[in-house]
């Protein structure tokens, strides 16, 4: 009897510990990024790191300014956002409101399928299809450009945007829509004037989480944006993002070198960006309930 009680006591403590594991891991990730990344700022000022215009990590002395990388990430993300918002929200409305039963399931399945495709496979397909296309359409010396990255990333953000925006539309009380229809509005007027405003905070969260996905995406963007760490003058030139820099250079960086610390410092920047996006999006989703 007492053995049983003891056993249950231990199991319940294990359950509690596992419940707290997520908090523990988030803190652990942040601590270890800080542990390796903060050492950089013994030699370089934070402002010189964030706003420095040159990224030459293996020159002597190394130049570790990440402004070109930040701008590269921003440019690719902005392009992806502009493409993915109308298409993603439009598809969410179509699937939630217009598509008939069987078609709806097929479309949802297709979008779930997209979410499951590994990013390195999408990067590979982008290399062999999208990159030559962009090169030929715009008559460029290379198709490895920020635009190619934007298109590919917009595509990768779609499953997130569509599924969360569709949930938001789905969870609006039915009588909102019925009220509008009863007043003589067409279906589109009911969607456009009543349902979209009612679902706005959920749709906003969907867009934010889509952007979060885009900023953090690594493999596909590294394979198709050309990886030139210079401040981009247009969307039709090669760029290098924060994520691609870490992925491409960590293999060569010597543990304990300034280059190594700098790549971890980029990791801190990425972690903070994703933290802010996720917390804000969560607040929007919570507000809806």
């Amino acid at each position: 009897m007492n053995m049983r009680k003891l056993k249950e006591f231990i199991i319940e403590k294990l359950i509690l510990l596992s419940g707290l594991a997520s908090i523990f891991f988030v803190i652990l990730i942040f601590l270890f990024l800080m542990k390796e990344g903060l050492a950089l700022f013994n030699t370089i000022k934070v402002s010189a790191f964030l706003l420095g215009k040159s990224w030459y990590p293996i020159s002597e002395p190394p130049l570790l300014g990440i402004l070109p990388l930040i701008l590269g990430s921003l440019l690719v993300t902005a392009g992806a956002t502009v493409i993915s918002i109308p298409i993603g929200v439009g598809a969410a409305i179509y699937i939630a409101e217009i598509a008939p039963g069987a078609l709806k399931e097929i479309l949802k399945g297709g979008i779930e399928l997209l979410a499951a495709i590994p990013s390195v496979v999408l990067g590979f397909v982008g290399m062999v299809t999208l990159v030559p296309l962009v090169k030929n359409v715009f008559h460029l010396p290379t198709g490895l450009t920020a635009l190619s990255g934007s298109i590919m990333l917009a595509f990768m953000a779609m499953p997130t945007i569509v599924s969360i925006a569709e949930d938001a539309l789905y969870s609006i009380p039915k009588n909102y829509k019925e009220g509008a229809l009863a007043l003589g509005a067409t279906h589109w007027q009911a969607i456009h004037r009543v349902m979209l405003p009612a679902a706005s905070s959920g749709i906003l969260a969907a867009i934010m989480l889509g952007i979060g996905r885009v900023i953090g995406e690594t493999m596909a963007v590294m394979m198709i944006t050309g990886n030139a760490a210079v401040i981009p003058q247009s969307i039709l030139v090669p760029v290098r993002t924060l994520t691609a820099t870490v992925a491409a250079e960590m293999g060569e960086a010597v543990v304990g070198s300034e280059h190594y610390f700098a790549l971890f410092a980029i990791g801190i920047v990425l972690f903070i960006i994703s933290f802010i996006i996720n917390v804000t999006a969560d607040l929007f989703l919570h507000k809806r309930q």
Partner: protein
Amino acid sequence: MMRNPHRTQRIAFFLLLTATLLIVVPVGYILLVIIQKGLPAISWQFIFDIPRHGMKAGGIFPAIVGTIYLVSGAIAFALPIGLLGAVYLSEYSRDNILTRIIKLAIVNLSGVPSVVYGLFGLALFVVFFKFGASILSGSLTLGIMILPIIITTSREALESVPQSFREVSLSLGASKWQTIRNIVLPNAVPGILTGTILGLGRAAGETAPILFTVAAFYLPQLPGSIFDQAMALPYHLYVISTQVPNVDEKIRYGTAFVLLALVLFMNLVAIIIRYRFRKRKKW
């Protein structure tokens, strides 16, 4: 000039359909391209041979085996913690600030960029714990990455077990843990299985977290222990499509096909389990 609301509606619906097709048609095209060009590359030799001539010939067997090891390790780590964490959220937690923070942590964990997981795994497992670049480091990194998927899906499965089941068990004198073990968990198995398989699929396809924690560029032999480096399918695809010049297109498409087939097969199994479970559910 009066605008005709019905005409506006037709135009709007047409645009919405176009938006949907802009997503779904490329997905179909991607699958088609990879199947069409990848399938002819698949042969007994391609699957079961080691890469030869600097990866320009031969097969991908070590990469397949490496991915299987990594995914098994990740799930062995993440499933117990994730499942117990889900039990906590579903059966023990109250609606308070702690629960709110746990949920926020899960959301954040699923939002951390995959390359940041790679950095974390490098700093903690490879450097700090001195596991080196090894299957152990890579598995643990992938395990933490898929934790949110397992917690979220398991929790949904546990919460969908009707409250009355628990009440009957408790009223018969069973303790809380006995109720969970004998009543709640068995009824949630299909949902937990779905989450586990989705986690497997995700772990199999990720590249960035294994870049600095385990992945070997070219290692034409099978790993001997969990402290060895290993090749992995997604990293191998990255290497032969960007790092090694003049690899036969057939080998690239074949590798992409095997990786995609593996990941989609796991997703398909998860969908089938979910579907059959929904149909069979008696409550």
